[in-house]
């Protein structure tokens, strides 16, 4: 009874080595996809959403006002579905704004918090969770399941899109990189990281709906402003101003290209 089982086991063992060696490369991407599916249910971004929701309802800042008085584009106090329509034109500031710049606006004008304070350290780090990023987590979570619907009806929205499109192809720096150098072709990757092509509808949609996200390798929730910031760093560019017109124009270019996709954030990334 023992010999046949041993023989079978040995061949299974050989076969598995064959699989692991010969198919290592093609399976690497599959395994990564499998891993991602396994952990997709346990997204620590939920904690950032919870923290954001608590803070949102709390009267804060020198003026002791809660962010519930903030207008994110669908009217004061409406958070549900707001992110799926951003960036957009806001009459009260007479400009196109993304989520972060709108949050800065509300935190400064409603709550009285100095802009310098908010922008000084806007990204999370070691034992540091800036309020603005928790707001981002909460707000984007309230658009989960909502269809992306960025409009280009206002002339400033149209212009912002066109400017974003041109920033996207601006080659500069010691590497001659533009955003399009990595994000302008189908089916390419950097090391093992697939690169979405933002000139391709499917790629744009898949990429945009998965950010902001919890970055497992960094153990932190990362906002869209952070994503743009870190792209420019790797592009060997100088640093973009937080929530500046440059970043908003890029954001509306990418968000609009993702229209009609169902927003799925906050996402979970490697």
């Amino acid at each position, binding site marked *: 009874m023992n010999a046949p089982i041993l023989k079978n086991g040995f061949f299974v063992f050989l076969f598995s080595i064959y699989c692991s060696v010969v198919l290592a490369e093609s399976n690497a991407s599959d395994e990564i996809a499998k891993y991602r599916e396994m952990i997709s249910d346990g997204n620590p971004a939920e*904690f950032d959403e919870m923290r954001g929701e608590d803070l949102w309802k709390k009267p804060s800042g020198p003026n002791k006002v809660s962010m519930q008085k903030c207008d994110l584009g669908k009217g004061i106090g409406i958070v549900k579905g707001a992110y799926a329509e951003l960036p957009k034109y806001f009459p009260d500031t007479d400009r196109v704004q993304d989520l972060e710049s709108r949050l800065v606006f509300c935190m400064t004008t409603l709550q009285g918090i100095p802009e310098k304070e908010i922008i000084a350290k806007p990204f999370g780090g070691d034992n540091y969770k800036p309020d603005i990023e928790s707001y981002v987590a909460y707000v984007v979570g309230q658009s989960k399941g909502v269809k992306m619907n960025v409009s280009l009806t206002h002339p400033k929205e149209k212009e912002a899109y066109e400017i974003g499109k041109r920033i996207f192809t601006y080659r500069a720096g010691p590497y001659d990189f533009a955003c399009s150098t990595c994000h302008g072709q189908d089916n390419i990757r950097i090391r093992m990281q697939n690169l979405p092509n933002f000139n391709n509808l499917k790629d744009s949609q898949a990429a945009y709906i998965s950010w902001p996200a919890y970055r497992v390798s960094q153990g932190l929730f990362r906002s869209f402003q952070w994503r743009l910031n870190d792209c420019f760093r790797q592009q060997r560019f100088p640093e973009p101003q937080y929530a500046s017109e440059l970043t908003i124009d890029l954001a509306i270019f990418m968000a609009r290209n993702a229209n009609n996709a169902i927003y799925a954030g906050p996402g979970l990334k490697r």
Partner: protein
Amino acid sequence: MGNPMRIRASVQEGMTEVKVLMQHEMETGLRKDADGKLVPAWHITELKAVHNGKTVLEGQFGTAVSKNPYLVFRFKGGVSGEKISVNWVDNKGDTRSDEVEIS
């Protein structure tokens, strides 16, 4: 009291599947901060899941477990509506306990 956990529990064919998402920094004690100083070890050491007064999972967590651990486990038995409680202790003596109903 540690940070709240997110727990989900459901029954499928006589097996209860429990998914626990914990909030904890899980510092190994080997990492250096931006100034080059060692960040002291701070991590969960024990985890216990209890159902109907019986321990259904007992674990010893060490430095190999990552930040914000996500754990999925199954045990035999469990009926919709019954309670599962999960609790942990960390090396600083901090604890956290959360309870959820099996859906």
